[in-house]
């Protein structure tokens, strides 16, 4: 028996595969399943997922309920119901403690209910406040809970509120009649906002705040930052005003390479993270292909046969994508080696 191949950690997938391929009998398979994933693990998983799904559905249901215009329901009943829910959730979180997942989810629920309360209050008394005020006020009011929660989902929710408030502020205050031709700054500012959140998250993880360590959160933030900086860069590439008006300032494309190179270096050297590196390189691949396509189809179609451009561009896409995939495989292998002690 080769010992080294049996030194690999075993998971449920491996056990199932070995059974399917006939290496384990039905009895051995059932016994192995119980060892690898005992009922206690199944129960713990089910409790966690039921809590997440159940709470998400219940909170969504409450939102739907108050979005329906209940003409027959008095304002005190409406506000009272939400307040009761809010207080119950906050007290529940306090009683259970924030070291427990249930406590954290209850605090998240209280945070959501606070926003619903503010929305219903604004709807009932017609306060005349702009929508951005609701989201910014909501984010400000729950900030204390967010800080003490040690719960990544609540931090993400808070960031979503800030993003929404920021977008609405731009639409309702900075450019209420949509008169500005330059809409790119809002994306750059959103990129900066989420970029700061990303850097703070990485520093916090390094400092030992493990609750922010989830791969999903890092991936989501990197995607948000890259998307926000990519949109202005794309607008420079596909500048429709170029032929008949003021061109889009090339300055809007400048932050993207700076951010992409900076992020690449950080995630390659400082905080090694293959998923982030892959997202950055795939994003770069997209922008490079868009730039080449724009140059080819707009710059040279009068000089060459258009059909040749189609063929050449197809080959360029394949070449650039292959190069990116090749590079990613190499980097992944190198990073895996670097991780091995």
């Amino acid at each position, binding site marked *: 028996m080769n010992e080294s191949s049996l030194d690999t950690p075993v998971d449920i997938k491996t056990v199932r595969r070995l059974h399917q391929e006939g290496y384990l009998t039905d009895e051995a398979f059932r016994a192995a399943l119980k060892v690898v994933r005992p009922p206690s693990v199944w129960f713990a998983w089910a409790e966690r997922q039921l809590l997440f799904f159940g709470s998400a559905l219940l909170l969504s249901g409450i939102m739907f309920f108050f979005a329906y215009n209940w003409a027959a329901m008095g304002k005190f009943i409406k506000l009272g119901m939400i307040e009761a829910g809010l207080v119950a959730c906050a007290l529940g979180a306090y009683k259970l403690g924030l070291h427990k997942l249930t406590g954290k989810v209850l605090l998240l629920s209280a945070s959501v209910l606070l926003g619903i309360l503010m929305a219903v209050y604004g709807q009932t008394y017609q306060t005349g406040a702009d929508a951005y005020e609701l989201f910014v006020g909501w984010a400000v009011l729950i900030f204390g809970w967010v800080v003490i929660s040690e719960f990544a989902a609540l931090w993400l929710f808070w960031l979503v509120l800030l993003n929404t408030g920021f977008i609405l502020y731009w639409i309702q205050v900075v450019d209420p009649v949509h008169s500005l031709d330059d809409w790119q700054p809002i994306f750059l500012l959103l990129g900066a906002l989420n970029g700061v959140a990303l850097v703070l998250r990485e520093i916090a993880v390094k400092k030992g705040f493990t609750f922010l360590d989830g791969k999903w959160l890092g991936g989501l933030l990197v995607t948000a930052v890259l998307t926000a900086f990519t949109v202005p860069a794309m607008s420079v590439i596909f500048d429709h005003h170029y032929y008949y008006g003021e061109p889009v300032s090339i300055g809007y494309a400048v932050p993207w390479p700076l951010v992409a190179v900076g992020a690449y270096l950080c995630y390659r050297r400082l905080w090694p993270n293959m*998923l982030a590196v892959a997202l950055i390189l795939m994003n770069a691949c997209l922008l490079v292909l868009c730039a080449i396509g724009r140059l080819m189809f707009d710059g040279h179609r009068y000089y060459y046969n258009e059909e040749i451009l189609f063929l050449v561009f197809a080959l360029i896409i394949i070449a650039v994508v292959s190069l990116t995939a090749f590079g990613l495989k190499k980097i992944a292998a190198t990073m895996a080696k670097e991780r091995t002690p």
Partner: protein
Amino acid sequence: MKDATLTLGELLNHPEVTPFLREDDADAIASRMEKRDEAPKDPIYIRILSGIGAWVASLFLIGFLGVSRIITDDAGAIVTGVILLATALFLAKKCTSTFPSQLSLAFAFAGNVMVVGGLMELLLHSHSSGNEMLVLLLSHAVVCTTIYILYPSVVYRFAAPLAFVIIATIWASVEVEVFWVMHILVAGEMLLLGVLLLHTRRSAFIQPLIRATATMLPATLFFMNLTQGALLDWHIWKAIPQNAMLPSTAMLAGGVIYLLSRLTGGPQQFRQPWLIVAMVATLLLGLFTTPGVLVAVGLLIAGYAFGDRALTALAYLFLPCFLVVFYYAMNVSLAQKSGMIAGSGLLLLLVRFLIQRYSVKEVEA
């Protein structure tokens, strides 16, 4: 929740497993594991990049063939498509480096489109028109099945079945215009996913089809939800029945119950209190909730049970997206929607409470 941390060797030497092992099982498993190490799979981000890249490149290839007027009739399209497919197969067999693989994938996509387009034109010439989408669907079914068997690309094997379901959905909504057909599509997707997950070896040959089916099931439900009412003032269906989603909800509830019973080891486990609670809750969900909730729950269970993180991620991605789409579903009032969603949430939390009590008792026992 993480599984117990064990190496394969420790598992095989575990006192609860060892009695059931045959004499040479451990050696056979060791050599099997060595083989697995020799052929590592591309990470998912590379597969996504390759798939999108090849698909866009194939569009430009088709654009080249179309604009250059190399192909003037249906027979020409079929012949060119077959040549592209043959080249794709040749490249896939002979070359392993990245560029030829990518080129091969682009040729496969372009070849598929050319052959299907050519077949469609050919069949429509000899028959009356009005069934274009059905002809397209059948042509793609034939081509996709053939290429799926012959062409060993994970990306193609994922994308081609997806295209089949998309064409089927367009056919149902454009040519048939009967909402019931969508329930049949949901039933087909659910059965296929169940059979593939529970009754096949889930080899590399099957795995992309599992992922494609798992992706299309929620996507079909999105479409059904969005088109129950007028979609941007466009009435897709001839008529929408009362409780339009009920058949799919009932079928999916049955599917989740079957999944639970199979995963727990069959009818002999039906006396377990927690399983009874889970099954009753699923039945109740089948009576009043929206099918989106059941699909999310089903994918979550399947993802965890089979250790397939893609299915788990799909469940987590699908639920919030579905809730947003459901909010805009036109033929149900917000009050009803609120009842369905909040009721489902309460039910799941109740199940959690009961399971928690049961698991505490188990631990104490």
